[in-house]
């Protein structure tokens, strides 16, 4: 059963005012597949997400969507000014399928914030509410730009677990954008390492051994990535370091 890909990017290049933001990016996202795009700041991760969403003009190449493809999108840097009075419920009712707001909110375990004003939500609560909004469309593809921003470490693990279980339930594809190598890697099928062009791509374990990856992120990060993938269910100490005899350090992964 080889279903056609949900979306196919073919030699996608985006240039703005003579600067190349992404170059010759080619890949597919298939149903049920989670792809994580990693890369340093300014590598073009958000540009890639926008190209995929169809809100970024391409200089060359094309994006082929499966007909009728529904995309649920969770933007990066979502900020609501405190001067705008808007409850979570109303926020969700502004989306597609407004009648499904409760169902979506239940799915991300956030019903208790329904009547709360948006600007009072914590980082983790806000990200879940945004995820609920993306789910409301019954999407075939989730595009999540930095889903774990402003979420504490325990919250991040839970958020990624939630994203994985949503994928299993909806059998949707997912593209995650992240600059954080930690927990993302344990929950992804494919890693796409971006630095304007795709440096390397594939299974997290394989990617972590690629010279291009090590070049971009450093040896330590590469080692910890491999370790993370090997020890799916390792235990964490209270301070967040990994318990099971791994030599990975949690600091200094960010590039």
């Amino acid at each position: 059963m080889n279903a056609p890909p949900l979306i196919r990017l073919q030699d996608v290049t985006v240039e703005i005012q003579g600067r190349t933001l992404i170059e010759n990016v080619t890949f597919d996202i298939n149903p049920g597949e989670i792809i994580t795009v990693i890369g340093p700041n300014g590598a073009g991760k958000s540009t890639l997400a926008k190209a995929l969403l169809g809100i970024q003009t391409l200089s060359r190449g094309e994006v082929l969507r499966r007909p009728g493809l529904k995309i649920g999108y969770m933007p990066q840097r979502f900020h609501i000014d405190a001067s705008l009075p808007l409850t979570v419920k109303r926020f969700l009712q502004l989306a597609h399928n407004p009648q499904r707001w409760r169902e979506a909110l239940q799915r991300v375990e956030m019903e208790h914030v329904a009547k709360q004003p948006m600007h009072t939500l914590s980082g983790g609560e806000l990200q879940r509410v945004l995820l609920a909004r993306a789910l409301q469309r019954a999407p075939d593809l989730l595009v999540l730009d930095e889903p774990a921003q402003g979420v504490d470490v325990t919250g991040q693990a839970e958020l990624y677990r939630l994203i994985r279980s949503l994928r299993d339930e909806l059998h949707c594809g997912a593209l995650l954008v992240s600059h954080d190598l930690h927990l993302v890697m344990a929950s992804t099928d494919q890693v796409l390492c971006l630095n304007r062009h795709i440096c390397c791509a594939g299974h997290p374990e394989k990617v972590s051994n690629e010279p291009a990856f090590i070049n971009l992120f450093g040896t330590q990060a590469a080692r910890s990535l491999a370790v993370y993938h090997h020890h799916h269910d390792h235990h964490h100490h209270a301070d967040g370091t990994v318990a099971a005899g791994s030599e990975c350090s949690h600091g200094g992964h960010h590039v």
Partner: protein
Amino acid sequence: MFDILIPALLGGIGLAFITGPLGCFVVWRRMSYFGDTLSHSALMGVALGLMLEVNVSLAITAGCVLMGLTLALMQRQKHIATDTLLGILAHSSLSLGLVALSFMRDQQVDLMSYLFGDLLALNYQDVIWIFAGAVAAIIMLKLLWRSLLMMTLNEDLAAVEGYNVLRTQLLLMLMMSLVIALAMKVVGVLLVTSLLIIPAAAARPFSDTPEKMAALAIASGVFAVVAGLSLSWWWDTPAGPSVVVAAFVLFLSSMGAHRLRHA
């Protein structure tokens, strides 16, 4: 006396019906400095209108639209931050307007009335213009409401959900230019923004939905016009600034009442 007072009241109240909801977007989108820049450029519109001998309100609207487009274009360069740019354009256009008007010595130009408005000089024709503008703006706001809210929340998300963000942005700017042109006679170039932001800010503590805030902002604006005109009538104070002072007092009371309620 009613010949002076009634057009002033009607015009001011009509204006409050647009500045209320539009002012909410100015507050939510943090556009008050943008509004200032647009309104300062209105004086250039006045000069242009007098020079070319066309309808001054029309010239003001055109001037504001032109300024808005210039701003949108100049924001794309990355050497100077937006607030600096707004400051440069606001004061330069105000000065350009003043310099241009000084060349027209043969014409009777009442500069003070352009700078601070002359609410008591409104006639019934002005009132008709304001009402027509108010009806047009309210219809436009009603049609664009959802789109404007979505754009205010997040432009990328709005675009993905199929809203035409660029068109909505341009229409918002057009509405602001129109309102500034209409409000010029009431409060003048220097005080126009206050009529947009003060009633909206006063409405905020008592609102739990965007629509309620817009409605309360209208009510605050109407109150400010009535109270300001009364002040002006009994104590012979300048009408435009009196309306702004009334709005400010209302804002302070709103903040105070909110503090007390949540103390």
